[in-house]
């Protein structure tokens, strides 16, 4: 197993949001600020690593016909456990993220990775795939969140200390003081706008790279069911 390839695929070539266009529901709903994107991404990463590892561990025992309910059962259980754990032991963080945790169940990236990768690969490779895919997802969500937050409210990573602890207060930057704000950037339509612009930018970059000989990465191993 080529672990470097797993990392490259997760972070860039097969990026959950920017190449596979999976997990659109949390992508649109949560990315009103960089901090929200970061928190959602990290919570999803935890679930992805755990669910990928478990699915890989039991992959030989699951028959093809019942794999989807089995995977969904495992994913929903992981999400609920993370939800309860955060509520009990990281309550302040839970108050910020709590609304979004349940959304992870509906994130097709998690089921997509179970189906496309973990169901066929050994445990370690699957866990690593979950980690890098999760971090790629986190990166994309944080980027979208930062753009929306900057244009919408003139700040970067506001309330980051609520998410990461008071030591990270230095991340909270007010770029444009006394900035009136652009409400639309915080409302759902801007999620589509910013995602579209980021997709275009990635495409443009890859076109350039193609001219110098690299192939454009195509999404592969999309989940069997029509979910986004």
């Amino acid at each position, binding site marked *: 197993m080529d672990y470097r390839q797993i990392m490259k695929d997760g972070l860039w070539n097969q990026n959950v949001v920017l190449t596979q266009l999976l997990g659109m529901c949390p992508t649109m709903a949560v990315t*009103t600020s960089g901090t929200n994107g970061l928190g959602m991404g990290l919570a999803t990463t935890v679930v992805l690593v755990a669910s990928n590892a478990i699915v890989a561990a*039991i992959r*030989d*025992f*699951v*028959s*093809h*016909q*019942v794999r989807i*309910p*089995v995977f969904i*059962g*495992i994913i*929903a*259980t992981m999400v*609920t*456990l993370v939800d*309860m*754990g955060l*509520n*009990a*032991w990281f*309550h302040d963080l*839970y*108050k910020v993220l709590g609304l979004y945790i349940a959304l992870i169940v509906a994130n097709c990236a998690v089921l997509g990775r179970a189906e496309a990768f973990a169901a066929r690969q050994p445990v370690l490779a699957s866990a690593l795939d979950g980690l890098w895919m999760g971090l790629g997802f986190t990166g994309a969500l944080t980027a979208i969140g930062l753009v929306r937050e900057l244009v*919408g409210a003139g700040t970067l990573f506001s309330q980051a200390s609520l998410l990461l602890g008071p030591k990270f207060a230095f991340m909270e930057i007010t770029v444009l003081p006394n900035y009136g*704000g652009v*409400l639309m950037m*915080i*409302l759902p339509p801007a999620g589509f706008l910013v995602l579209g612009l980021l997709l275009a930018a990635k495409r443009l970059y890859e076109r350039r790279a193609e001219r110098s000989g690299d192939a454009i990465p195509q999404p592969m191993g999309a989940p069997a069911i029509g979910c986004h």
Partner: protein
Amino acid sequence: MSTLARWREKLTYQPVSLGIVAMLTSAALAFGNHATHEDILKAEQRDLQASLTQVLPEGYADNDLLKDTVKIAAADGHPVTVYRARKAGAVTGAVFQVSGRGYAGDIVVLIGIDTEGTMLGARVIKHHETPGLGDKIEVAKSKWIRDFEGKSFESPATEKWGVKKDGGVFDQFAGATITPRAVVKAVKGGLAFYAAHKQEILEGN
């Protein structure tokens, strides 16, 4: 492995394996619930305690409000838990939740009232209003909610308990009238509830 592959295709294998997975995940959830239940309860109590002290002026109570409660049935039959603030044994105020229908679901407001029926404070503790528009009812976003402090049915008069658009004394937000209207109505309902049940709140057990 080939035996397993043959078994996997059998019709009985599939429901049985599905059942085993369901049992294992249920066990994991039951265990998780057991492990977190107490800490979640404690965290929620801490939250409630923190918001209870927010709607009362500092040093207003010297008792544990969470332990000094009285349940009263509201007009719609739902029991309302009233937390009583005491100083040196005498009741000095009451804290309870009221709710109103906002732009996107219920807005839950915690209000503190002194024995004469004057507002000590109000805080929105749960809402689903539009970020950037309706969320100015949160104290973290705007000072608006503090306008209620010191208000009672004597000042302003009952008919002035509304947003300015409706001839009242409370500001609305640019682009969002439904949200502050719902909060004002909920708080007004809370004052009426207090007036109607004053005796029970002050003397009940």
